[in-house]
């Protein structure tokens, strides 16, 4: 293939590396009113009174809005296709505040300094309620976090807000107890994963204006422009047709911008005042007042026969929704397929969970979306089971891993693993890491031990039966192509990859195509970039749109030349009759066809969705050094092999893998989430929330095996999320090998490891 498989640099690289205006903040109109949010100091309280008079008297203050001023229709900020599986539990401003940092009022002023000055003058009297700051105390607590009567669900997700249950899920196949009793080895474990913060370097921000037609234009750093448009329409009580969402370059997302955040406030202010406004979060607001991964406590039982066949997986989680139930149900359910689905010899499964409301910051979407969470206990337990059986942990996995053509116990009736070079990937990672040639536990020096540990992961590629992407490619009058997509490149290179796939079909060089993305007035509908969907779902739509355009160009040429389409060759640049009698450049063709009587602009259009969500596969091997006196763990090397199907851009895929693994290492080792006893998030900045620096870990070796997934374009699956999933359990398992201790809580900071070694 000409373009698919090429390691092109990104189509937008030059602009973003030049420092020229590219990101939301760079385009804020002069004189936009600045919004500052007055925030609750209490984790749980009801507003008794708000006095905004002093704030309003500050010169330069335009408005102060409170819950009394906003529409009273509840909605969800979760970026999901309608009807969302998240509770409608949110108002633009609410009389009840549910975490330290929850919004109380919007202060709107001519500049930041004035807004801050006025914000301090807003006087609020609270009826402070007893908060719930521990997931174990949530269910049936006398404090009811969402006691409002107008909270609603689009369909049942096992929620019971009066009991503080945001949602719950239970799936049982077979008889867990009977099968466990028949197992020769059973491992039981309890593990905890923390509410990690996505920490995109660009915090949440947007600005709004009113256009010449009186419509609301919201420019936002979001992964989900179409979903946000719909949410804003509901929240403001206006038609979605009155709203335009534009996404400029995003400075990182990782799922954080799959949940609306700053948009409702900013849109409300501009709609109300008919003046431009801007809202930019500082780092502390970004960490506290957006959404994080859901913290989950897991109990797991896993059983195997003496010859190493894993027959039972029994998992239960009690999970923290935080104050609002964004993505609470879908992250929980997504975890099932992508973890338990790995194991193909099971006879019984239970996967169950309750996600409870607490007075913490809200959970949401974070790369991995439930799979990372579920794979943490599962892959830990598999390695601990291997230790019990006295079997090599990779051998145990190889023996049990799902094969192509097989149906996992948790899959749907007609669902099979259609593609995957899983044994090949496993063999390759063993080769890279020297798995069979060296000890998995060794003494490095007097105070350090080394260990090797492994973990596997699945993810999906888009949301099966739900994600629908449309792509349009127009032939412009100069013979150039423009691709229009509603997907949202946030740095991963989606724009480049989509263009590669379209150019592959049309045949033209990359330079002859341009891409325009994520502007709801211009591009066709796309749910946005999340759920590892862009390459597989939108990419397939791009391929089909290119095919549609190609067909139209050839058909039109055939008509003009009064010949049949099979006698025309077209390489994207030139149309030519096979017999050489006619040659026409695409420039000349386009120019001729776009202007004049009975002419038209040609455009290819395609909409695509998939009945399946083919899982990419990854196996990771962590090598660690453990300081046996202090518990400090250093990941000295990480080896990974990924099967994401056909690699459209091997270089960009490689960087995705390295980046995902590193984020996973942060979750594994450094990214602590701490609340004060009064419910304040202490780890609300980079001084306390430690994302990995470039000195915190050793080399990362990544390789790929390329299976061919038949359902989408060019054999692709996804890469974006699967790559974060193995770091935590692989490091856990390497520590287990190194020092014989299982560290149950993330992150595995020195003190946790030290304690685990003491308890061993």
């Amino acid at each position, binding site marked *: 293939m000409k373009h698919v498989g090429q*390691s092109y*640099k*990104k189509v937008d*690289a*030059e602009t*973003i*590396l*030049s*420092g*020229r*205006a*590219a*990101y939301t*903040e*760079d385009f804020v109109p002069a004189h936009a009113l600045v919004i500052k949010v007055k925030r609750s100091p209490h984790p749980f309280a009801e507003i008794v009174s708000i006095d905004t008079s002093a704030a309003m008297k500050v010169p330069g203050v335009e408005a102060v809005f409170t819950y009394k001023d906003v529409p009273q229709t509840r909605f969800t900020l979760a970026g999901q296709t309608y009807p969302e599986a998240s509770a409608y539990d949110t108002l633009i401003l609410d009389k009840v505040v549910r975490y330290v940092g929850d919004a109380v009022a919007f202060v709107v002023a001519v500049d930041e300094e004035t807004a801050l000055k006025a914000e301090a003058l807003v006087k609020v009297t609270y009826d402070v309620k007893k908060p719930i700051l521990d997931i174990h105390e949530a269910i049936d607590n006398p404090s009811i976090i969402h006691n409002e009567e107008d909270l609603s669900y689009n369909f049942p997700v096992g929620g019971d807000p009066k009991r503080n249950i945001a949602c719950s899920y239970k799936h049982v196949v077979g008889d867990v107890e009977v099968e466990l009793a028949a197992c020769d080895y059973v491992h039981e474990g309890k593990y905890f994963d923390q509410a990690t913060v*996505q*920490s*995109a*370097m*660009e*915090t949440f921000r947007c600005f709004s204006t009113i256009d010449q037609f009186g419509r609301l234009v919201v420019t936002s750093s979001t992964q989900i422009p179409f979903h946000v448009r719909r949410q804003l329409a509901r929240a403001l009580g206006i038609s979605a047709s009155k709203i335009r969402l534009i996404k400029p*370059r*995003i*400075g*990182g*997302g*990782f799922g954080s911008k799959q949940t609306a955040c700053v948009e409702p406030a900013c849109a409300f202010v501009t709609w109300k005042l008919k003046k431009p406004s801007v809202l930019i979060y*500082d*780092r*502390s607001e970004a960490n506290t007042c957006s959404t994080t991964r859901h913290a989950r406590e897991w109990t797991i039982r896993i059983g195997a026969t003496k010859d190493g066949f894993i027959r039972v997986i029994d998992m239960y989680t009690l999970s923290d929704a935080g104050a609002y139930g964004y993505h609470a149900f879908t992250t929980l359910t997504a975890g099932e397929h992508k973890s338990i689905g790995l194991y193909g010899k099971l006879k019984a499964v239970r996967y169950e969970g309750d996600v409870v409301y607490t007075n913490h910051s809200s959970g949401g979407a974070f790369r991995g979306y439930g799979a990372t969470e579920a794979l943490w206990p599962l892959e830990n337990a598999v390695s601990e089971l291997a230790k019990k059986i006295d079997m090599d942990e990779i051998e145990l996995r190889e023996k049990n891993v799902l094969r192509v053509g097989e149906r996992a116990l948790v899959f749907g009736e007609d669902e099979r693993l259609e593609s995957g070079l899983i044994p090949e990937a496993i063999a390759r990672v063993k080769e890279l890491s020297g798995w069979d040639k060296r000890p998995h536990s060794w003494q490095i020096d007097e105070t350090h031990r080394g260990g090797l540990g492994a973990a596997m992961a699945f993810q999906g590629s888009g949301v099966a039966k739900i994600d629908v992407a449309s792509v349009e490619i127009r032939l412009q009058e100069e013979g150039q192509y423009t691709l229009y997509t509603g997907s949202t490149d*946030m*740095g*991963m*290179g989606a724009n480049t990859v989509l263009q590669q796939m379209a150019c592959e079909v049309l045949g033209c060089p990359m330079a002859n195509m341009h891409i325009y993305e994520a502007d709801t007035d211009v591009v066709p509908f796309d749910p946005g970039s999340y759920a590892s969907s862009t390459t597989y779902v939108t990419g397939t739509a791009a391929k089909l749109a290119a095919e549609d355009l190609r067909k139209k160009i050839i058909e039109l040429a055939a008509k003009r030349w009064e010949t049949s389409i099979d006698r025309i060759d077209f390489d994207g640049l030139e149309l030519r009759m096979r017999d050489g009698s006619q040659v026409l450049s695409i420039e000349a063709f386009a120019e001729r066809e776009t202007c004049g009587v009975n002419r038209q602009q040609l455009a290819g259009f395609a909409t695509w969705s998939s009945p399946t969500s083919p899982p990419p596969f990854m196996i990771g091997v962590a090598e660690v050094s453990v300081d046996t006196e202090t518990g400090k763990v250093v990941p000295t090397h990480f080896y990974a092999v990924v099967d994401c199907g056909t690699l459209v*851009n091997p*270089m*960009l895929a*490689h*960087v995705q893998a*390295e*980046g*995902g*693994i*590193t*984020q996973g290492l942060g979750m594994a080792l450094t990214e602590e989430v701490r609340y004060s006893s009064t419910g304040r998030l202490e780890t609300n*900045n*980079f*001084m306390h929330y430690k*994302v990995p*620096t*470039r*000195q915190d870990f050793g*080399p*990362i070796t990544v390789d790929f095996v390329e299976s061919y997934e038949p359902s989408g374009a060019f054999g692709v699956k996804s890469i974006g999320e699967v790559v974060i999933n193995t770091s935590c359990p692989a490091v856990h398992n390497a520590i287990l090998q190194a020092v014989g201790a299982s560290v149950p809580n993330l992150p595995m900071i020195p003190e946790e490891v030290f304690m685990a070694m003491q308890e061993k």
Partner: protein
Amino acid sequence: MSLTLQLNVNGQLYTVQAAPDEMLLTTLRNLGLYSVRCGCDTTNCGLCTIWVDGEIILSCAYLTVRAQGHTITTLEGLKEEAAFLGECLASEGADQCGYCTTGMMMSVMALRRKKAHPTDQEIKDFLVGNLCRCTGYQSQLRGIRKYLEAMAQ
């Protein structure tokens, strides 16, 4: 109270109005120098890295008042070299979201002036104050190596 200050930025003299407590980051962005960004408020991320007299500093924590009499350099002022470094990074896919990259590039170009042939460890050491959430740093290192090797020729 706003002060009238003379600043030398990228070889050009500017007269700016700034409050006594204004940080250089704000002043530079007001001059349209968008390569300088704010990422953290706590001196941890390095997005706002610029040069004062050739030394890398955090413009989010550097008072504009103090910049008088010094030579300020941002990515925009390093034109060809910055473009070449950008090209080296892009050729390794190391730009990703790009938000942290321009600040990191300022550190890289400062390092080269101090040490033309640093080891990987020295590179990591010098750049530890530049956080990146996308890349995992590996591709950055490959791009930086490419740039240093080419510049050393």
